[in-house]
């Protein structure tokens, strides 16, 4: 029975597209930390609703508000409102979405300082009326950068955006744009006070009191046993960057799942025979 069970971790567009594709060919359970499907998209967006309905009618199981934390020996440790449970599964489809690169991933040298925060953290703190800084630097130009800018728009901060590519334009409002320079170090005493940028051996030191990390999207991987690609019996359906429409993300997810199904002819045949 569990030989044919597939756990889909993440109910964003990639996760529900994968689940809809797998439904009927395996016993599918979708988990998400949030209590509704959709991920970063609104739960009532028509494509999300349509995929959710297809999953429902195909008998997909839902474990919403439930966090997967560990994948080992063919079982997934899940933590949620109904308790802490092991979920047996033959495969995991991991649809964890993306996050901005960390300071270590950006090789940002210097001490560990207050005021250097990932964009999702800055957005939620700003929503809780925390003023992020008076001279804010946003590293990145994509969706997180825009979200961070929007969240602090009313805070009367001077916002400088750092774009990796020379000549790159930014579609949201800002006070200054520095493009083609790479951030290499932060400095400060307790709180960040400067960000050092580098280009072709030249350095430029920027005064600031907040640095928001909003660039170089990485796949968000946080389930032990499903961290590195390849991982045993794990199919990763995570877009490579935060660019891309939901249609592209869903299509990439379906393609990855199609490969998973074609890699497992025995399982699919048996499931079809049972059906």
């Amino acid at each position: 029975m569990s030989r044919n069970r597939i756990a889909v971790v993440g109910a964003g567009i990639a996760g529900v597209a994968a689940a809809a594709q797998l439904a009927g060919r395996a016993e599918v359970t979708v988990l998400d930390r949030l209590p509704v499907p959709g991920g970063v998209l609104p739960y009532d967006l028509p494509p999300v609703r349509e995929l959710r309905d297809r999953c429902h009618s195909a008998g997909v199981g839902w474990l919403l508000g439930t966090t997967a934390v560990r994948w080992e020996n063919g079982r997934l440790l899940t933590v949620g409102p109904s308790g802490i449970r092991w979920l047996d599964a033959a495969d995991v489809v991991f649809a964890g979405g993306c996050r901005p690169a960390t300071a270590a991933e950006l090789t940002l040298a210097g001490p560990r300082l207050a005021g250097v925060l990932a964009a999702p953290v800055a957005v939620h703190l700003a929503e809780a009326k925390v003023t992020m800084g008076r001279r804010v630097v946003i590293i990145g130009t994509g969706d997180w950068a825009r979200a961070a800018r929007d969240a602090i728009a009313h805070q009367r901060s001077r916002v400088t955006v750092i774009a990796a590519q020379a000549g790159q334009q930014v579609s949201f409002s800002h006070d200054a744009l520095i493009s083609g320079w790479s951030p290499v170090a932060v400095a400060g005493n307790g709180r960040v006070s400067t960000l050092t940028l580098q280009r072709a051996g030249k350095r430029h030191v920027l005064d600031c009191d907040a640095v928001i990390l909003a660039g170089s999207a990485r796949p968000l991987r946080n389930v032990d046993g499903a961290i590195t690609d390849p991982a045993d019996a794990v199919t990763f359906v995570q877009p490579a960057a935060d660019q891309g429409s939901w249609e592209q993300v869903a299509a990439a997810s379906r393609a990855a799942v199609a490969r998973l199904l074609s890699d497992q002819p025995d399982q699919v045949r048996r499931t079809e025979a049972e059906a």
Partner: protein
Amino acid sequence: MADARAFDVVVIGGGVLGTAVAARLAMTTASVCLLEEADDVAEGASKGNAGIATTYYAPPGTLEADLIASSWPRWEDICDRLDVPFSRPGALTVAINDEQVPALAGICDEAVAAGTRAELLTGEQARELEPMLTPQCRGAVHLPDEGLIDPVRLTCGYAELAAANGASIRLSCPAMGFDVSGGQLTAVQTPAGPIRARWVVNAAGVAGGTISALAGGEEVRIWPRKGQYWVLDRAFGSRLRKMVLPVPMPHTRGVQVVPTTNGSALLGPDAQDITDPADKGTDTGSLEALLRLTEQLVPEVSRDYAIKTYAANRAAAEETVRVRPAALRPNLLHVGNRSTGVSSSPGTAERVLGLLRDGGLECQDRPDRVDALPKIRRLLHDPDPESLPEADPRYRQVVCVCEQVTAAEIAAVFNRHVPPRSIEGIRKRTQATGGRCQGSVCMVGVAFLCSLHTGQPPAAIRHGSAGATLGVGSEP
């Protein structure tokens, strides 16, 4: 009722040695106060080290060797009582070329003479014990009893035990000066006023020289020696079976590849003598050098696994290990250690108690002393995770997914004598925000829980212990 401003012993410094001394003394009839300048314990070298509980570091017959020898057999018992993660995976000191091989026999002989087990291995034997070791390995010394400890949890555990036994733990309370009468210290001056003391223990780490000078003691030259580290993901660290060390250099044990008690791995430390103890910055050149050095030991080392980098300053000194009365102030004890503070902390605490008794402090172990702390069950390590919600329903709420930390665990560390006071304080006690996404997902939740437990608004929540808040203020 005892005077809240007079103690038998005032310990200056909330690092692993100061808290170990306070924990030991607090189990006796002596009254104890611990002063720490920062807003938390374990803010200096005690939180920036590799967490090796070593069995052998110095030649037999030295003070350092004695302190380590009287400490290492006790770790299983101490860590069980203080709820501190500990394991004994053993260590390999590895020769990676033929020139290094002759040094191994000497290391092996000296380790055995110092009282620990040690065996000389061929390269093949070493690779059987640690398959991730470089094929270039020409031979190794295996020390099977070398231990791994969480040095921050150990320091917090000592402080908690001290507090549970009635010690007064005063944070954000630097020693600023001393009152002296008849050549003896009589009180420590603090921002909160004087604290009278019959004895003072100077366990101030890098600041130990300054404390000696303030007290009118002899010159003790101590300077910061910066060490930088990479932290690599559990996806790498959990496959590492042994601590892997190079053949030591004259002044340092060298750059190591070691697993940690939470499954990650550390690369480091290097050693750079600096002047400013507040300088805890990493630099790109040093970090690159660490990767190159450690690749020679374990080729799979890669920045692709990097979670974070950090630097910390150990207290370098010509007198590398000090546990003795000050030359000019007989009721001041200097307690310090350049490299093996964690490894020697239980033995050092016993030795300080002995020195104080020799000096006339009359104290006995109290029959009603607390000798163990309540254990906090952790989702990451619990053998029966499914039963956790019965103990506390908040185990059903994961806050930090990367490190598998629940709301129940965060609530538990606030329900302590020495609770966290910042995001960093929560990380030190639970690992929340310390994983591979570095709080990208969970730091807000951790900040809000910190608000909930401290009653402070989110804008007042501090990030680190230096006083800096997450933002710079709040909107009306």
